[in-house]
């Protein structure tokens, strides 16, 4: 169970050490480091072999972080803002991989918003984590497109453009799993990551992750302090993997039980009465209200566990395309003869 302390080795007999990566070069206290921890724990807890995971990222402090966890997983640190396309190619080449995208708010909402939008539309099977600090950390703290109106840089510069709410945007565009969390909320983030891993299509997780060097001061809306005051969790999350039987009782009145496509269960104990994570239109409307209220809604914002993913839409074979034997990818001589005949 997400909450309970991880055993010394997981169900496939690996110690957590095997899920660790290189030493971080990020600033001490950077939210991204905490997220790395949650990610590797989630894969450890679920006993997913690291070899099955493909880590994908763009450019930024956040996008560097895959080097600092799960060193036994292949990784591709690509170019700025275009990770979704790389992830799409990788996921199609080998549908048996678990693609994990790690991006930043600049990488996703500024330069990358175009690819993000189209990724979401395709419902590519992947986990897409946005480590959201409202600034470009790696280039020393300029505003990104998720910076809130009125938020202030250390330099005094104030942001006047409306932020892109990547979650509202994703839900509106048809995303099938959308959540928001906070790098400081261990329990919520862990459960959400596990549900994301279990999800069939694209899971968009926007995780507020303070930049201690450039955006953790008074006047920032992505600081630890701000989150302490404004974090408004919609539900209390718990995740029951498919291989565990659903021991824990729950009250359908206060708790929604979402059966994920792989048979696991996501349990949402309502904290905001009336919030329904299966109602797209109202989810978007509710998120848009927060522009006024300043609260940061966290939790599972929307989920549709059974929508077909892109590989299903494309009707691909179950085996990885990458390693299909020659006789399955090169048609026989007869085929060429037929083609040539038609051209005479």
């Amino acid at each position: 169970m997400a909450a309970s302390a991880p055993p010394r080795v997981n169900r496939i007999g690996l110690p957590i050490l095997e899920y660790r990566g290189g030493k971080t070069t990020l600033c001490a206290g950077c939210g991204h480091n905490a997220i790395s921890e949650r990610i590797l724990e989630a894969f450890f807890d679920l006993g997913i072999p690291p070899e099955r995971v493909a880590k994908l990222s763009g450019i930024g402090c956040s996008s560097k972080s895959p080097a600092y966890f799960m060193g036994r997983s292949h990784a591709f640190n690509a170019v700025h803002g275009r990770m979704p396309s790389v992830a799409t190619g990788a996921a199609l080449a080998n549908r048996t991989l678990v693609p994990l995208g790690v991006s930043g708010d600049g990488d996703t909402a500024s330069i990358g918003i175009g690819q993000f939008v189209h990724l979401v539309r395709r419902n590519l099977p992947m986990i897409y984590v946005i480590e959201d600090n409202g600034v470009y950390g790696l280039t020393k703290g300029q505003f990104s497109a998720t910076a809130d109106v009125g938020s202030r840089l250390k330099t005094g510069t104030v942001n006047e453009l409306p932020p892109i709410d990547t979650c509202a945007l994703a839900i509106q565009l048809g995303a099938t799993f959308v959540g928001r969390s906070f790098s400081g909320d261990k329990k919520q983030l862990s459960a959400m990551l596990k549900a994301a891993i279990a999800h069939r299509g694209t899971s968009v997780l926007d995780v507020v992750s303070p930049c201690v060097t450039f955006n953790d001061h008074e006047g920032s809306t992505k600081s630890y302090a701000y989150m302490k005051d404004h974090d408004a969790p919609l539900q209390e999350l718990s995740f029951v993997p498919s291989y565990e039987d659903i021991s824990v009782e729950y009250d359908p009145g206060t708790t929604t039980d979402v059966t994920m496509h792989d048979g696991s269960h996501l349990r949402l104990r309502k904290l905001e009465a009336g919030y329904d994570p299966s109602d797209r239109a109202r989810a978007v409307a509710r998120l848009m209200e927060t522009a006024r209220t300043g609260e940061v809604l966290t939790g599972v914002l929307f989920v549709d566990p059974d929508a077909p993913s892109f590989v299903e839409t494309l009707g691909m074979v179950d085996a990885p395309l990458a390693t299909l034997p020659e006789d399955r990818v090169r048609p026989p001589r007869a085929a060429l003869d037929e083609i040539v005949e038609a051209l005479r």
Partner: protein
Amino acid sequence: MPSTDTHSPDAPSRPAARGPVVNDFSIQVATANGSGSQSSNTVLLRAIFQMGVPVSGKNLFPSNIAGLPTWYTVRASKDGFIARKKEIDVLVAMNPETAREDVLALGPGAVVVYDAPLALSEVRQDLVFYPVPFDRIVEPLTSDPKLRRLLRNMAYVGVLARLLAIDMGEVEAAIGKQFAKKAKARELNVAAARAGFGHAAAIEKKDPFTVRRMDATRGKIIVDGNSACAIGAMFAGVTVVTWYPITPSSSLVESLAGYLRRYRVGPDGKATYAVVQAEDELAAVGMAIGAGWAGARAMTATAGPGISLMSEFAGLGYYAEIPAVIFDVQRVGPSTGLPTRTAQGDVLSTAFLSHGDTQHVLLFPGTVEECFTMAIDAFDLAERLQTPVFVLTDLDLGMNVWMADPFPYPARPLDRGKVLSKADLERLGGFARYRDVDGDGIGWRTLPGTDHPRAAYFTRGTGHDETSAYSESPAVFERNMERLARKLETARSLVPAPEAHGTGKARVGILAYGSSHPAVVEARVQLERERGLETDYLRVRGYPFAREVHAFVERHERVYVVEQNRDAQLAALLQLDLAPELAPRLRRIAHVHGLPLDARSVTDEILTLEAR
């Protein structure tokens, strides 16, 4: 009319109209696009082809969907010349908008078949005019005016059949093939052709041009280069195809998608491939790179503007060493340029595509057969060299139809390059992604998902050492860059070798590539026949240049580099690669105006330069 709108000083030469001119002339049909003339022209071309006469067709169409002038040229050549012929011998003038201009552009003695109402016979005295009342001819066939407009086009095929002695049986066979699945349309079109044929019986033949059966096309096929690339890609075992529509590359992927649906879907209805229409070219190439990284045979196809948008990813592919195949069906640039006209203008910028010291491998198919074979080569090379490979064709090669020998079934199995399996890793205990263990500059890679604790490595566009660990060390960086340069050296011997023509003893050499080939072949004959100038010819097929290319320049006093761009781009690459002492031997014949290259222009320019 475009095909002479280029400034050619001298009026095109033509045999004096004494005696018949057999199987050696060009027909140009001038219509408006969207008027359905395309099928008529295909029928015309096929009918001649079926009579065993070598034939070629060039479509000059505007960058819009309907209503603008378009020209289609069919050339019959007993000698098998299939380049564009500059001189038009027979004009079929169906388009009021351009008729006068088209007629004025003709050389003396040419023939004009025209829609009678256009009353063109007054325009010039030195031509042979055949007015034809197309409306009257098709009127009996249907009452639907829209259909009539279409049938007028098949009617001119009938008229030409009569005038040029094209076998009506072959015409009807061609119509049958064209409308294979549409019985009704077939009937109507046959009727229209017959009506034209019938009407023309009354016309008194005053020109020398005629078609006579020969046996030069037996067993051959007719295909466009884009389809040939598509077929090649399918037999190369392509698994991930990403694209964003752009003329003239769209039909490559659309034809590929069709073939894949037919031949790569299992009985369970499941596809052994994925075709994705991306949101733009950055995404298309990004997907191809991601797929190549994960082990797929991945490709995308585009044209100039797309190539420019792929620059950043091209550099990543080069530096992170990721296989991918990129077809660039070249059109006229810069910028949007002339989207429906042909050029070879992306050579230089693609060779150096992306910032920093980036260099790429280029392939130059020169025939539709090579579109097929080099598509296969490209995937093998991309995986062997672990780098993006660019296949540079162009609109002429890609969208026009060409005669070809049937494509050979691939003899070699797929070359998947240096990939370490789980078993390998168990044997080796581990590996270093970028270590040059074989001395060819190419390291060994593993595929994501390989079930071994040492299989993983961290792919990045940032500085890295042999183990692909992040590094800012100057020495490490420099060593890695030297290895990458070594890898490109290795490529010299792996890209398709150049093709040599001639005795090898001539003092003058010609160097060309891609769709310039047929014009150069014909120009060499013209030079020999008309001025007794013997030439050797080397057709370059890949970059970095094979050693033979250097040797060719060494063996000739003067080497004319013929290409279809303004800046003599291949000549530039060559100059940078040759021993500097050889550079003075190069002479540039480089023009771009959007029309397929013709032999006469090449011949004339070589003679002018030789005269210097």
